[in-house]
């Protein structure tokens, strides 16, 4: 009787201990042969298609670099942990990556709350995180040494939205509508639009918010229609964007429509169907290039896909995002020299000035600048081509 109890307890302890065994690599995740890069991505949660896409893109670029000889002779290895869009899991993944896998630095993240929760940890451990996948100004405001932002934030995008309406489309005091998810991204958008609208002296924007679990956007769209909105900006995920477009079509609501970078894929256009070309048409604020056009970056990306990930028949914008952030990190690692430390990586990234990835707008970091870029370009959904065509170059908020 007692023996069994003791045995059971011992068994449980052994099982616990087994889970604690760790294989130690070099303390900073770098040795002569390999650089370990980690990331906590949403690989199974509600936004899993983003996490999966980003991971695939990162691995694609790393495979390419490794096949071309690595960085100063070192091969790159990416370790992705799944957080299922739960902040607690993001933090424990961070602990796992830094304490168990011993990664050199972090690349990529999902959501905006995750990297925010990681900020104090990054500060303590002095580990840089490149390319958080959240378009909020909280990533670099207040200034944070270890977070290297890639994208123009939604605040910038909203400002560019207002500028574009004023300068290019020559609208005079239009009613601006914002339809966003009730999270940090939504708040960022509202902040940006309100600030810029005040600057140009237009009326305050009409704001509608919804919850992530929402399945019906009809009431938001009908309310926007009742307020006679002339231009609508919705920085939301692609499937929600498609739903909003369909609602607009159904309600016969024809404002100027502006989506965000997640809505630049062919799959998105397929989901939206005719509603993407309804009314005055759809434009998207693209933070990266369209990988189907004929710019050099797009060609490079397509060549890499064909060579190193031929099973990926339908590359998407998340693959491209992962590819791009991996490229920026690799540029930093290359400039940091053969004797690699985290401090050297940070100072190498800080020296980056207008680095052309061919994928994002030129990247600039500095001792007091972690924003990367604030520019987006506008793509327009073209009915004849059934694809997005480039409308403008890289625009900056004024």
């Amino acid at each position, binding site marked *: 009787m007692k023996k069994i109890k003791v045995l059971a307890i011992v068994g449980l302890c052994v099982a616990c201990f087994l889970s604690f065994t760790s294989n130690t690599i070099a303390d900073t995740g770098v040795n002569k042969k390999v650089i370990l890069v980690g990331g906590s991505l949403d690989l*199974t*949660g*509600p936004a*899993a*298609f983003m996490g*999966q*896409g980003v991971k695939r893109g990162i691995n694609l670029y790393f495979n390419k670099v490794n096949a071309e000889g690595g960085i100063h002779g070192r091969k790159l290895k990416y370790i992705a942990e799944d957080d299922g869009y739960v902040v607690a899991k993001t933090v424990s993944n961070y602990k796992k990556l830094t304490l168990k896998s011993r990664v050199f630095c972090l690349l990529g993240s999902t959501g905006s709350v995750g990297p925010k929760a990681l900020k104090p940890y990054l500060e303590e451990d002095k580990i840089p995180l490149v390319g958080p996948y959240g378009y909020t100004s909280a990533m670099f405001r207040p200034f944070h040494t270890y977070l290297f932002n890639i994208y123009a934030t939604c605040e910038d995008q909203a400002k560019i939205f207002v500028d574009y309406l004023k300068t290019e489309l020559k609208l005079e005091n239009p009613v601006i509508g914002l339809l966003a998810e009730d999270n940090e991204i939504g708040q960022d958008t509202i902040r940006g639009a309100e600030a810029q609208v005040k600057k140009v002296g237009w009326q305050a924007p009409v704001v*509608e*918010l*919804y*919850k992530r*679990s929402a*399945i*019906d956007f*009809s*009431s*938001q769209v*009908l*309310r926007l*229609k*009742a307020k006679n909105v002339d231009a609508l900006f919705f920085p939301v995920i*692609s*499937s929600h964007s*498609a*739903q909003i477009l*369909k609602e607009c*079509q*159904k*309600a*016969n609501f024809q404002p100027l429509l502006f989506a965000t970078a997640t809505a630049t894929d062919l*799959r998105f256009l*397929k*989901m939206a*169907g*005719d509603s993407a070309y309804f009314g005055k048409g759809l434009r998207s604020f693209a933070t990266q290039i369209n990988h189907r056009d004929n710019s050099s970056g797009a060609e490079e990306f397509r060549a890499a896909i064909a060579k190193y990930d031929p099973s990926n028949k339908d590359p*998407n914008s998340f693959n491209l995002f992962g590819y791009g952030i991996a490229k920026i990190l690799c540029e930093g690692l290359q400039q940091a020299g053969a004797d690699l430390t985290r401090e050297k990586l940070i100072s190498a990234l800080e020296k980056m000035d207008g680095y052309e990835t061919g994928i994002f707008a030129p990247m600039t970091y500095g001792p007091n600048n972690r924003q990367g870029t604030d520019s987006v370009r506008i793509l327009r959904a073209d009915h004849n081509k059934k694809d997005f065509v480039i409308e403008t170059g890289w625009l900056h908020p004024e």
Partner: protein
Amino acid sequence: MIIDGLINGIALGCIYALVALGFVLIYKATHVINFAQGEIMMFCSYICYAGSTTFHFNFILSFFFAVIAGFLLGALLERLFIRPLIGYPILPVVIATIGIAMVLQSVAALIWTFEPQKLDPFSGSPYQLWKVSISPVHLWTIIITFILIFLFSLFFRHSLVGIKLRAIAEDLIGSMASGIPVRRMYNFTWGLAGAIGAVAGILVAPVIFIHPHMGSIGLRALPAAVLGSFGSIPGAVVGGIVLGVSETIAGLYLPKEIKDVFPWLLLFLVLLIRPEGIFYTYEQKKV
């Protein structure tokens, strides 16, 4: 605007009602909430998608393909995981259904990846009836839901199997004693719920697209089943429509602070006045 809102609400409510119907059928027979109902729905709409893209069936054929697959899936899940748990307290069974949900979700993700897919058999521009516009999806959703409800009421009132199912829900021991094959009936109920789930999944797919997480609509439809006092089929329909309409109307007219929680406040109110839902009939309780 209010008429548009009402029509959107009714269409949304019909989807809720179809999902809730799946909950209600299973609850009525086995007193278990099937948390995997949303995932069965998701899986069946993927099957319909696979039917129309991989096997190149036309839509009608892949629709029936998915419905039959839904029936078989429901019956299979019952046979594998729920039957061994007959006679146990409900909570382990409920958790088992959550396990089923996780498995279905990950199997779907393994086969079809996480990217949203499009299944839109009712595409086309919205119909304009007088001053109101209604999209084909919504129109078909409302029509199919009402046809299904009608068929169900016929089924439960007039068919032998339906009467047997009602007998089981009424008095388990008594129906066992009178020779009704209770286990086979349970199996059949799960199959039926799976088939309903397939219909609901295919109807909701054009609206929210198909992705492995679309099953979360199941959780949103639960209040519909509760409002109509779990276990009542007309209750599920009324509950679903009340929920859908209250959601859209609240979205139109209430300030944003309470519009998202309005259906829940409504639910609280109903439960406070009638703790067992609107359609509750007196049930004897053994002490």
